């Protein structure tokens, strides 16, 4: 079993050029600003002295390749620069925000699975039956709703009308964190669930009609044992990659949802950075978020390999 995981070092190695490319894109963001980046960043606050100081801080007086080398060198030391707003190290701000966003993402992932697996199972047992049509209507609508709007609607229904959960914020203790994160996580889960349901429904239908399920039935397997051991274990495999890709979407969505619910994660950090024209912070968040997506991709491959004995990334060339 474990020799099949021997692809991991190679997979990590292949991620390196992507990570390098990501740092280049993040680095170039400053240079996409029209005109002199220092002037653009400072806007109307730009006295000649301050502009000169910022040019110095951003290293804008050096040739481009040297600027990038300096940028990369600092990144490797965990130095994301200094916030232009409060002069704190950006790394510090980011490391405060990362656990918040990670908790939110994990929470959302768990909720979306709790929503998706039963709904997909219900829909798949009787394709085109009444329940299936209901589930399909949910997936269709779920995909058409703007995420932030779902959040606002949940605030309206659950917080304002039913007074069950807070309208926003993050709380103080760990238990409070989970309580405050429930609605935002549910919002993300609702917008992610339709994709999972679609994929899982299709693969469950295929699995239910498969020969190996007939075999399992001919052994007297039925009900939840049949579903767990034979149907779900197979149906989950194609869905794993769908979830992996969509977690990247969740990462992007959390940026917006943190804004809706006033949660002090990476998204709030980035948006505050945007409004304050705090470029080092924006760059750091963009970089960290891209790293999230790359890591999720690798984890997906690992999980896929563990679940499907037929897959062997060690031997196969990348498709």
């Amino acid at each position, binding site marked *: 079993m474990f020799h099949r995981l021997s692809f991991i070092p190679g997979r990590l190695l292949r991620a390196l050029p992507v990570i390098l490319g990501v740092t280049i894109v993040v680095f170039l963001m400053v240079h996409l600003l029209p005109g002199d980046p220092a002037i653009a960043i400072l806007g109307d606050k730009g006295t000649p002295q301050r502009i000169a100081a910022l040019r110095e801080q951003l290293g804008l007086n050096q040739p481009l390749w040297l600027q990038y080398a300096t940028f990369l060198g600092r990144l490797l030391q965990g130095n994301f620069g200094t916030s232009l707003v409060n002069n704190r190290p950006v790394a510090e701000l980011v490391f405060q925000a990362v656990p918040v966003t990670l908790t939110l993402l994990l929470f959302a992932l768990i909720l979306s699975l709790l929503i998706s697996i039963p709904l997909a199972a219900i829909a798949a047992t009787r394709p085109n039956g009444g329940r299936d049509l209901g589930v399909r209507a949910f997936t269709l609508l779920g995909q058409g709703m703007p995420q932030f709007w779902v959040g606002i609607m949940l605030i309206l229904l659950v917080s304002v009308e039913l007074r069950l959960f807070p309208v926003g914020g993050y709380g103080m203790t760990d238990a409070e964190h989970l309580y405050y994160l429930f609605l935002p996580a549910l919002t993300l889960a609702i917008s992610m669930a339709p994709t999972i349901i679609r994929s899982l429904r299709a693969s469950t239908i295929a699995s239910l009609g498969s020969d190996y399920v007939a075999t399992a039935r001919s*052994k*007297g397997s039925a009900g939840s044992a049949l579903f767990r051991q034979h149907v779900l274990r197979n149906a989950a495999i194609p869905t794993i990659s769908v979830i992996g890709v969509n977690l990247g979407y969740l990462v992007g969505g959390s940026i917006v949802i943190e804004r809706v619910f006033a949660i002090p994660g990476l998204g709030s950090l980035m948006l505050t950075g945007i409004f304050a024209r705090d470029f080092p912070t924006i760059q750091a968040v963009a970089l960290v978020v891209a790293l999230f997506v790359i890591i999720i991709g690798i984890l997906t491959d690992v999980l896929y390999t563990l679940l499907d004995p*037929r897959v062997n990334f060690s031997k196969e060339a990348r498709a």
Partner: protein
Amino acid sequence: MTPSNLLSVNNLSLGVTRAKHPATTIVKDVSFGVDRGERFGIVGESGSGKSLTLRAIAGLLPQGIDVFGGEINYEGRDLLRVTPNERRALMGPEIAMVFQEPMTALNPVMRVGEQIAEGPRRHLGLSRKKADALAIEMMAKTGIPDPAKRSRAYPHELSGGLRQRIMIAMALSCQPKLLLCDEPTTALDVTVQHQVLRLLENLCDDFGAALVFVTHDLAVVNQTCETLAVMYAGHIVETGWVKDVFRDPRHPYTRGLLDSAPDFDQPNRPLRPIPGFPPNLAERPAGCSFAPRCAQVQAGCLDSSPTLMPVTANRTAACFETRTMFEGMPA
């Protein structure tokens, strides 16, 4: 169809009903009986209804196929009317099945030993350890070399022949009285086919299990079965002892099948394919279903369809022509 039969299928009809369409009957009035320990073959072309009949016995009819009528008696119980729980209890220790495609019929993400052990754990109440040991024992009985190591393999890591042996080990693991086989050797190489057929035969004898063996290949039936039924377009057209039927087929379709298959004892005999195609089941001809393709067709064959009638001892055939021949002979 004596009461002592292990399995007796009576007037089974299966088909499809769709909204806005007339119902299509795919299997019509099929009846046969299987004794304890008997090896019974059902032969027919694809689409003849043989596999559906088998799946009806196993309770595995695909979605959309309905039972229009008849009964399937297994030890006095009608399998078409048992509750899902009774069915679950039957499948494995009483009735087991071997499928055509050992690749798709095995769960691709489960170790084969675990798949064999699943039935015994559920039905015989064995512990995981004992069930695993039984699985390895069953694999050894089916002639799988190094069974302890192979039991930890996944299906895709084994050859087709080994996979089918796994299927057979799985089916026999709870010592069923009735083994249903749906073209179990069609997907295998010819050399492996023969080994697997021998194995099935021997194991059924060892375990005292009766066999219902569905295939399109007459030669396979000849190797494996004692009795057979020939199906055409959803009907049984001829039944009898395999040896009798092979020596003296009484239905023109059976005769056509034999003439169209190569015979290794007479390699120079010309092959004569049956002209035409099986009928569209949605628009069955009024008379005998085989009439449009039959060399001995007569005027009456197009008007009414013949039923199975005794021809000689333990022989039946559904053909007017055969009956007149039979009636003309001394009893």
